[in-house]
């Protein structure tokens, strides 16, 4: 079991296993009830039709609008509050239990309350994504800023940095990589929040694509939309990892 292996040894197993997976899907799909599973080829045809009609693009953009607004709000709220909590020890001690509790609670349980308070619009969905995204960002920022060595702050102080300079030149740059780790975790959770909001508040975007297909017993449609969401998830996760790596470079 050599660690590197030849090119063939490295790339053949994943490719073969991928092909085998698709072949199995195709085979099972052809020999079962269409309400249960449809072959991969039929799913692809449905996907192509969705893409050609423009519906796919439109629904993806609609979903991404909710996703990115909620995630941005999570970052804009989570990161500054995280820094503040790390800087002011008494605030951190006062609120840490409550933040941990909110982090460990399945926030998806709050969706019915949000529904009856805020109804079906854009804002309640963004709120759901925000709730899913904000706590990992907040938590990682606090933990990062807390690990800041006191000497760094002392050096800044002895050079007569004021509070503003301390934040700008020490706290924020030091904590940024940790915030990015939080952002990467938040991306995965925000994606769940986005679909949950589109399922349980009112059907829009990719969630609607799945819901309406499933209500019409259009299994090919459900599978096609699931594939799209999986692809979107992989791209967003990759983006999150890339961001994290980009900022990890100056982590000390």
């Amino acid at each position, binding site marked *: *079991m050599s*660690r590197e*292996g030849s090119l063939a040894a*490295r790339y053949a*197993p*994943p490719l073969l*296993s*991928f092909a085998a997976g698709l072949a199995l899907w195709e085979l099972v799909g052809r020999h079962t009830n269409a*309400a*249960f599973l449809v072959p991969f080829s039929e799913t692809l045809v449905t996907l192509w039709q969705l893409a050609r009609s423009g519906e796919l693009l439109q629904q993806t953009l609609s979903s991404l609008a909710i996703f990115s607004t909620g995630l941005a709000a999570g970052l804009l709220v989570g990161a500054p509050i995280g820094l503040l909590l790390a800087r002011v020890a*008494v*605030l*951190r*001690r*006062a*609120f*840490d*239990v*409550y933040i*941990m*509790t909110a*982090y*460990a*609670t*399945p926030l*998806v*349980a*709050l*969706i*019915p*309350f949000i*529904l*009856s*308070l805020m109804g079906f619009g854009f804002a309640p969905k963004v709120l759901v994504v925000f709730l899913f995204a904000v706590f990992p960002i907040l*938590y990682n920022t606090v*933990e990062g800023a807390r690990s800041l060595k006191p000497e760094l702050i002392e050096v800044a102080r002895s050079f007569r940095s004021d509070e503003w300079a301390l934040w700008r030149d020490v706290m924020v740059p030091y904590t940024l990589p940790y915030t990015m*780790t939080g952002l990467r*975790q938040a991306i*995965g959770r925000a*994606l*769940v929040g*986005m*679909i*949950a909001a589109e*399922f*349980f508040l009112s059907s829009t975007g990719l969630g609607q694509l*799945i*819901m309406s*297909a*499933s209500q019409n*017993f259009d*299994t090919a449609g*459900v*599978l096609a939309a*699931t594939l799209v*969401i*999986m692809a979107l*998830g*992989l791209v967003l*996760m990759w983006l999150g990892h890339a961001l994290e790596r980009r900022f990890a470079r100056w982590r000390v």
Partner: protein
Amino acid sequence: MSAAAIDTAREQGSFWPRLWAGIAIMLVWQITVRAFAPAYVATPIGIALAIPRIATDPTFLLSCGITLAAVAEGLVIALVVGTALGLLIGQSTLADRALRQYVNAGYTLPMIVVLPLVSLWFGYTGAARLATIVFAALFSIVLNVADGARAVPREYLEVAASFRSGRWRVLFDIVLPAAMPYFLAGLRLAAGRALIGAVVAEFFTAIPGLGYFILFNSRTFHHNEAFVAVLVLAAFGVGCDALINEATRRYLPWYRRDEVRD
């Protein structure tokens, strides 16, 4: 959310700030809702008054039992299957290369997306909920156990080999114990995800359980009552977390939290 969290919880002199913050949160919540929101919206006082009534309500107790039992069952299945798969991937380069793409895809896919498919396959039943829970929990365990199995120090394996240890002996006496902290980290992640899976499955299929209890009561404008169920979910989430942190601390005191994936 880890050993560090417990350290902060034990930080000196945090009792009073914490109490004041709690009171402040309750006050702001109570006053805001009373001033701006309709009368049915949950308030701390309303929830506190609802607790004795709900805690003795047979429907509620049954809902708790059903959901928590389903989560426990799903976690056990995910643990057994996930540990086996994780060991396989961690131990064999071939299995890793062939299977990792599926595990990564399963981990990345927002689990909630499988609800329409799962309810198509298993019907609007408890089996659909169980499948959702297993799907939600499985992949974080596989990934963590695989990382753990790969992180076994090479010297340990070499020593075992020079004493002519059998394959199973090595697996159970060296690889599994070495993968333990990773396994626990995966379990902590999995427990949280399983709980979310159970709730969304109940929202989606409307089968009895805590999620449905919340859905039903909030639709009939009994927000205080519904919120008691949210508190139970929160307590379960926090409880799982604390339990696993404590287990890590007591039985694996040498392990550092930054070694495992989150």
